[in-house]
């Protein structure tokens, strides 16, 4: 029975390794809460979430993250307005319209789009897009929520396209054949049968895209303008939660209230992206069950 024991040991060892992802995830939660929660001794949760002023270095400091929260949401929503139509249209084109040769070219190209580092998007935004936006809309500065949305939108496209494409191409052929047999043409079949059947997968894609846009850091840090004020227009400079953490962490004293406040922002950020992921997960499962 010694061999069986050894086999069992090996199995347990591998099990342990596979649990590491959860360990790291829990580790992140613990760290965020341990470093971030103490801020609520000095600032109430209400004031933190709904306070209109983020003046972390004033005396006394103000830790209201409403401007940052809204900044993140504005930019992310703006990004989706750009990315969803383009990304979903691209997905439909790839799976329903394009010939296989074109498809084999476009799919890897879109994967490459996902591979470009975010700092390069940020750089491209600063040197090319921002001056263009400034010129076209006659603005005092080109670094604003609009520019950030455009770039985040481009960045979110690969996520949305590839997941939507998976969903659309997994719609059973029998659905389409039924539609063709009833005299519908390809466009009608696509719009009335294929896309609605893939709606679950497409919404998963959109939610994951939203999660990515909210969590994106370097691009918004570089092009959103960085003003921690409540945005009133897309052409105003804004500052997101991620950018705030990235920009200010380097200048805080470890353990100070400012340090704690940044970790507390990360808690909010983490909860938001986790929620998006879980919703996407649930949607995927529901969607799969229905197609089966």
């Amino acid at each position, binding site marked *: 029975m010694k061999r069986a024991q050894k086999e069992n040991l090996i199995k347990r060892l*591998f*099990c342990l390794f*596979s649990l590491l992802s959860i360990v790291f995830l829990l580790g992140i939660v613990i760290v965020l809460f341990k470093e971030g929660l103490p801020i609520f001794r000095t600032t109430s949760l209400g004031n933190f979430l709904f306070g209109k002023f983020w003046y972390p270095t004033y005396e006394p400091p103000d830790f209201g993250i409403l401007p940052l929260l809204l900044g993140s949401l504005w930019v992310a929503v703006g990004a989706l307005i750009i990315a969803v139509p383009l990304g979903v249209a691209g997905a439909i*084109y790839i799976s329903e319209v394009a010939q296989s040769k074109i498809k084999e070219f*476009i799919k890897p190209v879109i994967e490459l789009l996902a591979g470009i580092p975010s700092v390069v998007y940020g750089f491209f935004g600063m040197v090319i897009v921002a001056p263009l936006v400034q010129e076209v809309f006659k603005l005092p500065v080109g670094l604003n929520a609009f520019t950030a949305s455009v770039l985040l939108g481009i960045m979110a496209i690969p996520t949305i396209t590839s997941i939507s494409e998976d969903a659309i191409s997994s719609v059973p052929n029998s659905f389409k054949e039924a539609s063709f047999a009833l005299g519908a043409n390809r*466009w009608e079949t696509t719009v009335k049968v294929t896309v609605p059947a893939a709606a679950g997968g497409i919404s998963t894609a959109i939610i*994951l895209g939203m999660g990515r846009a909210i969590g994106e850091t370097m691009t918004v840090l570089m092009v959103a303008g960085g003003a921690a004020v409540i945005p009133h227009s897309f052409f105003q400079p804004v500052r997101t939660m991620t950018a705030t953490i990235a920009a200010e962490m380097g200048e805080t004293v470890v353990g100070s209230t400012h340090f704690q406040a940044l*970790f507390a922002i990360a808690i909010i950020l983490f909860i938001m992206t*986790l929620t998006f992921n879980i919703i996407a997960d649930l949607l995927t499962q529901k969607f799969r069950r229905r197609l089966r």
Partner: protein
Amino acid sequence: MISRKLKEYIGFGILRLATLIILLALFAILYFVAVNGIKVINWQFLTQMPHSGMTAGGILPAILGTFYLVVCAICFALPLGVAAAIYLTEYAKQGKLIRIIRIGINNLAGVPSVVFGLFGLAVFVKFFGFGISILSGGLTLGILILPTIIRASEEALLVVPQSFREASLALGATKWQTIRKVVLPNAISGMLTGSILGIGRAAGETAPILFTAVTFYTMRLPRSIFSEVQALPYHIYALMTEGTHPETQIPVAYGTALVLVFLVLGIDSIAIVIRNRFRRRKKW
């Protein structure tokens, strides 16, 4: 009423246009970075230390720094990711535990990169006392790419035909012998290919190394894994947001961006090409 035929024509036209816009965006980025970057890139740029406050000289420290960080990340994440994938595909039975593990992996993949940075700062830099160093940054990046590596390895393991496992087990091999002698040798190339995508990701990330590994300016090359380093992505950021001579820093940033894009996309394309060929050719 427009005819159905016309409607179809317009509809497909719009889809085509949208796809074209996506491709255009990619090519615009690549074009501007390439055209402006190529002007400053030469042998010196790649192999020399920077001087005159980052406005002249080369970017060798950033190239090396990124290399060290990536090596450290992959050394950490590859064994862990492969082991996790082996458990998930070879041992685990469908059930609660495996669902929890999957949720863990999915959500780890969705954590914003800057949050990984905070985790690295609190755990590796502070708690373990590794300081701002290659080790801290590499480990942080390693955790970040772990889900990518697990998924790629799982895919590679699933491609190995079940009949190989059956043949081995029927010959009286134990499960572990079967995995080691039959499954892994046939999955290893797929695993490595998938891991290359992880390398590309690790090389391009900035936020996770922001507080764990990088510094804007050093006069020395790193001496050990406890040294702080320059890194390509951070270098671009720093050139654009710090320093006092934007007119001379932007060209350097273009050059650095081109090197980074070339590196990351080069790595990714290799992985994609090998993977596609691999998927097509395997027909046991």
